Structures are given as structure tokens and as C-alpha cells.
């Protein structure tokens, strides 16, 4: 009995709510990927084992599955911590911000880097719960500085907005090149 107990203690570790959900998901993902090894990788006849294109995916996924199983075992043997689903909900709610980020990236080629960044900064600051004029103005100022730094000075490769085509000749050139 004491031996079993010690083994349990050995696998216990500091953990946070939701750990077991993550452990199950990772094990499922590893098993799924491993099950695809024959479909998704090739075996070249006449080549040495270590040079096979299948070798490294097979090694990494087998070990990943093994580690994931032990990680899950560790989670199963540890005490349950309250707040598991609240934590999982927080992970899911972060997808909203991922959506904002992707939306921002989709809009830049259409509405231009400067205007999209300014609008995005203000909207996101409001979404984050700030209502003060200082917060909004700081967001506008910071967004402007970011655009100036990366696009105007560092000339980082970012597409020009389609919206700029509607601008008068001189201004269009400036906006296309620097904003």
C-alpha cells in the first residue's frame, strides 16, 4: 500500500486547474498524429533507417505520446483542483482576441496600415474596459508611433491599403510609401 502511495507522490507535482483537460487533449492529439504516420510520411526503399523521411516524425510522435500518457497519469493521480471548467472557458475566451488579431491582419491590405492600426488600437482599448480619454488618446498616440517606427522609418514590408487608391495623386504616393 505504502509503495503505491509513494508512486502516487512521485508523480504528483505543482499544478493548476485545467491541467487534466490539457493532458487529455494533448494525448488525443499525439495519438491522432501517430495514427497518421503511414499516410502522412513516406518510406523510401533502399535508404537507411535513420535517413528515412518517416524516422524523425515517428521518433518524436512516439515519444510525445509516451510523455503525454505519463503526464496524464500524473494529472489523474493528483488531487482535483477546483475551477477546471472556469479555466477552460478562459482559454476559449482568448479565441476572441485571436479573432481580433486575424481580423486586423485581414483589414490592413484593404484599409491601410495607419488607419487600421489606429482604429484597432482604439476599439481594443475600449474592449479591454478602458473608458477614460487618457487611455484612448494614449492608444492613438502609441499606434501612431508604432506605424511611424516600423513603416515610415524601418520600411518594414507591409502591404499598402487598397483604400489609398482613392486619394489624390501626391498624397496617395506618400501614404503608399510611408503609411
Amino acid at each position, binding site marked *: 500500500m505504502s509503495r503505491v502511495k509513494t508512486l502516487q507522490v*512521485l508523480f504528483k507535482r505543482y499544478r493548476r486547474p*485545467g491541467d487534466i483537460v490539457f493532458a487529455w487533449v494533448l494525448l488525443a492529439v499525439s495519438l491522432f498524429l501517430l495514427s497518421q504516420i503511414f499516410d502522412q510520411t513516406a518510406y523510401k526503399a533502399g535508404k537507411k533507417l535513420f535517413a528515412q523521411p518517416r524516422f524523425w516524425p515517428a521518433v*518524436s510522435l512516439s515519444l510525445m505520446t509516451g510523455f503525454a500518457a505519463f503526464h496524464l497519469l500524473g494529472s489523474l493521480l493528483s488531487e482535483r483542483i477546483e475551477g477546471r471548467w472556469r479555466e477552460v472557458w478562459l482559454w476559449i475566451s482568448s479565441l476572441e482576441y*485571436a479573432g481580433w488579431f486575424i481580423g486586423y491582419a485581414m483589414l490592413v491590405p484593404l484599409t491601410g496600415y495607419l488607419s487600421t492600426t489606429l482604429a484597432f488600437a482604439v476599439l481594443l482599448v475600449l474592449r479591454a474596459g*478602458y473608458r477614460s480619454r487618457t487611455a484612448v488618446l494614449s492608444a492613438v498616440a502609441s499606434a501612431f508611433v508604432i506605424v511611424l517606427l516600423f513603416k515610415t522609418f524601418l520600411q*518594414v514590408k*507591409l502591404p499598402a491599403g487598397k483604400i489609398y487608391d482613392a486619394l489624390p495623386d501626391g498624397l496617395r504616393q506618400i501614404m503608399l510609401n510611408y503609411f
Partner: protein
Amino acid sequence: MEDLIAGAAMLARLDVIIALLVGSIGGVIIGAIPGVGPAVAIAILLPATFSLDPIVGLTMLLGIYGSSMYGGAIPAVLINTPGTAVNALTSYDGYPMTQRGEAHRAVSLAYSASFWGGMFGILCLILLSPVLALIAPMFGSREIFLAALLGIILVVLAHRGQIMAAGMLAMFGIFLQTIGLDAVTYTQRYTFEMSFLTSGINLIVVVLGLFALSQAFFLLTAPDESPEAKPVQGKMTAGIKELMKHKRVATVASGFGVILGMIPGTGEFTAQFMSYTYAQKTSKNPELFGKGSPEGLVASEAANNAVPAAAMIPLLALGIPGEALTAMMLSVFYVHNVIPGPQLFQNNLDLVYGLYIALILLNIIVMVFLLFSTNMLTKIIRIPTRFLGVMILILSFVGVYSLRNSLTDVMLSAGFGVLGLILKRLNLPIVPIILGMVLGGIMEVKLRSALPRLKTPFDMIDRPIAFILFVMILLVIALHIRTLIKEYRTHQPDEDHKLHDSQMR
């Protein structure tokens, strides 16, 4: 000597000097803001540096890497929140000193100890260079493969109490780098017939997602906070005099920093922990540790600042990064067609010396900057966390999108951002994924190129360095098993620490 002069000449350019200034001062500011670590900043700036000269881009990133820990000490001392994860132990003694009304003494001592550690690290790097230049050419494919394998094993085993999770994530990293078209056999690997996966998953996209975007999501989904730091009164040079009383602790701690910085996977946190324990064991007042001991503060700051220079050793000499930040720097080298490794010391010694000089200069710039600007930095610390999250999100876009204007990259990095958020919330490490990707790639390439020379498996270890590395691998595993058995016998497993290296970076 010629190379040294050529290296200095490389830095004597306006753009390099500006990059050095921006990098080192920017690094201090970034380090001082809790919630933004050097990894976030480097991840964002990485693609922007691709269009710059290698020396310009590298000095800027090196500046951020080397100086962030100086800044990280400020919130650790003043508000008990480490600016970067590696300043965690600084808060143990720094904050009690602040509570006693000795904030000025603590901050100036932290700067001086950081400077000591930083310079010690560079000195070791310079002194070791001739040895490295001698040893590095002895590293062929087999040796580099074994060194990378040792790196992976160390990264996993260094995460005590989280070994299963670290192993799982490191293997996930190795798997990620195999996705796409195999460069030798031209066969598809895990592309699921999706064309965007054919070219593989870009390391920078993963880095940006896991470090920068995850941090933005983390801050935006957590309650808003605005840390309050009070201004510090007094001369900042006072710490230098006091440091002289703790020369021994500072030097030994820097030594720990150098040794552990060179070993992949261990880095600042372990160095800090070991030197703190050493300082406490050899102190005349061990009871003061954790209650405001200047020695504890010196030990922790000197150790973590000695690491960046030492971490450059395996990167420059062998092309093997020991942690996430050097892994990011490796991609800058690759982009500019400068391949770190044995040939670097033979073909680009001027660049190596240029980097050394840049490291010395950045420590001096940071020290001078901090002597005058601590109170300005205490204001920056007060930026509300959610506002910071919004800014990181906007900046991350520049990083991801400027790579190749790909919306797919944006979506992938957003996905990795969510994964990073989950890992951060669960207190699980992120670094093994990145190192798995980098070291996995190195292992695959090197094993393939070593194959034609291998008739039997023993040929793998028939050269002296390869044999030593093999013995080290066995030793590391054996030592780990021994520790596990000891823990099992004493029935007292090592409690996992809450403070984890990957957190808040």
C-alpha cells in the same frame, strides 16, 4: 589582433551605434515592464531586423537580451514583481530592503552586481575564444548531433517536476520542424494535402505566437493591474562601493552564471538558484537571506547577468542554442547566411569580435543610462497590463505579417498564441517547444550527413569529442535516475517551484 580591429571597425558605424543604443536602452525599458520580457521584444523585432545588416540586427537583439535583466531588477526590488522571470530571486531580498526604506541601496546594488556579472561573462567569453577556435573545428556532424541530443535531454530534465510535460512539448517541437516537404527525399510529411504546410511551419511564426501573442492574450484575459512604484532617492553610484564588500559572492555567482549559461537548457534560473544557495551557505549572516540580505541580491543579479554572454558560446561555436533567446538569434544568423558553428571562428572572426565588443559597450551604456533614469523607469512600470496587452497585439502583427505578408502565418501564430496562453496559465514551459524545433532540425540534418561514415553504431562515438558527449549523455541520465531513486527512498519528492523560467518572458 587584425580581427579585433576589424571587429571594432564593424561597430564604428552610425547605424550600428544607433542599433546598440536602441537595443540596450530599449532592453532595459522592456525588462522593467512586468509582463513584457526580452523574448516578447525579440520575437516582435526579429523580422524587422532581417532587412538590416547582420551586425546591425544582431547588436540590436543582443542589446535587448543583455540589458533586459538590468531593468527587470527595478520592479523586483520596488514592487516585488520581477520584470523578467530571471529576476525572481532578486525580489526575495530586494523587496524587503525596499520595505526597510533602503530601496535606493537595493536598486544601486542590483545594478552594480548586474554590471559585474555582465562584464565577467564577456571576459570569460573573450578568454575562452582561443580555446573555442581550437575545439570548434573538432566538431563534425556526429559531435554536433550528439551535442544537440544532449541539449534536448538537458532541456527536458532541467524542468524538474514537469519532466513529462517538458518532454512532451520538446517532442512536439521536434515534430513541428518535420512538417512539410522533406528536403532530401522530396516527400510530404504531415501536410494533410494542404499547400501552406508544404513549406513547413516557420520558426518565427511559432516564436511570435508562443511568446508575444500568448502574452497579449494572457494580459487581456486577466484582470487589469497598474503596479505602483515609488520614485527612488539618492546617488546610484553608492552600490558600486558596497559591491566591493561582496566581491567574492559576485565573482562566484558570475562563475555559476557562465558555467550554467553554456549548458543548454539550464540558464539564468538555475544559475541564480545555485549562486543564491552558495551565498547563503557561506554567508556570515545566513538568517538575513530572504529578509533583505545584500549578499542574496548580489548573488542573484550577478548570476543572471553573466548568462547572456556565456549562452553565446554554444551558439557561436557550435550553432547550438541553449535557450529560447539564442534560438531566436540563430534565425537572424541564418537569414543573413552567417552560419554559426565551427566555421564562424575561422571565416568570420571579425564578426565574433564585433559581437564581443558590442556586449561590452552595451553593459557600459546600460549602466550609465540606469544611473540617471531609474525614476523615469518607475513611471513606465505603471502602464496598465491590459493596455500593454493591446500594444503587444499590435506589435505582434508587424512581426508576423512582415515575414511574408501571409494571412496563414497570422492564423498559425494566433493558434500558437492560444497554445502559449494555455501553457502559461498552466505554469508549463514554452521553451522546450522552441528548442525542440531548432535542435530537432539540427539533429535530423547532422545525423543524415554523418550516416555515410557510419559502418557500425559504434562509429558514432569513435572520436574523442563524440565519446565525451556520449558519456555526458549517459551521465546526465544516470544522475537523474539516481535523484529519482533517492527521492523515492526518502519518500519526499522535490516540490515543484512556482517560479518557472518560461513564465513572463
